[in-house]
């Protein structure tokens, strides 16, 4: 139960962070990716801010033998770069560039979309979940 509350709180903090950062707005993300246009470096500040906390924090956290509330740190076991990593990331980047949405911001944007009736947000999230389901069935 405490772990579920932590997950809810951590998710809320993450969602709040995305809303505050402006990254739930695809136009701002495209503004970062559009390096040839009127470049908006905000996204670099968001990632930089996140890494400023997470980098040193992880260093301290991984000195522990285990997390506070669970038995193990669940970390990826793969260490080698493989074709799946490259192809998957490449496809993700194309979708990100076309829409300006990556998974977190798209989910967060559902809330204002619900209030203002922006259909493409729902279409994106449904298609994204379908894409994830295709992965589950195929791989």
């Amino acid at each position, binding site marked *: 139960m405490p772990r579920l509350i932590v997950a809810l709180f951590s*998710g809320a903090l993450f969602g709040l962070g995305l809303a505050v950062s402006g990254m739930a707005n695809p136009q701002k993300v495209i503004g970062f990716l559009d390096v040839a246009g009127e470049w908006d470096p905000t996204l670099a500040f968001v990632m*930089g801010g996140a890494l400023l906390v997470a980098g040193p924090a992880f260093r301290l956290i991984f000195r522990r033998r285990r997390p506070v509330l669970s038995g193990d740190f669940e970390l990826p076991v793969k260490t080698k770069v493989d074709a799946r990593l490259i192809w998957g990331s490449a496809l993700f980047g194309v979708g990100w560039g076309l829409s300006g949405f990556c998974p977190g911001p798209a989910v967060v944007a559902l809330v204002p979309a619900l209030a203002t009736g922006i259909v493409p947000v729902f279409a994106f999230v449904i298609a994204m979940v379908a894409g994830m389901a295709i992965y589950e069935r195929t791989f």
Partner: protein
Amino acid sequence: MEDFTPLSGLVGGLLIGLSTALLMLLNGRIAGISGIVGGLLDRKASEVGWRAMFAAGLLLGAVAYMLATGGAFPVAIEASLPVMVAAGLLVGLGTRLGSGCTSGHGVSGIARLSGRSIVATLVFMGTAILTVLVSGQVL
């Protein structure tokens, strides 16, 4: 550069970093949105609960932001509905195939200096920038 918002970007980023650090310290889990949302489709029930709570938290964070500021945050989408659907499919499939997205690779992965995550981030940033460049010429 008129839309450049470094301060709110940095503050949002710090919140995202804090969320990422808390989830690792307390629960030992990576705050990767594609893994969390995609993992909801997985049948291993033991890991579904916290993921559902985290996803609910994302929405709650957006609600909290809207209540605090008294309005919706901007979500401006330029892509057409069919493009958004195609982009959603690519993001869903690509992030699962590539084992992560902007959060899992771009924040958590880089924070723990994972070579795979650094490569993945460079690849999806690269194809996203290229996609914006090309779509700016074509569409």
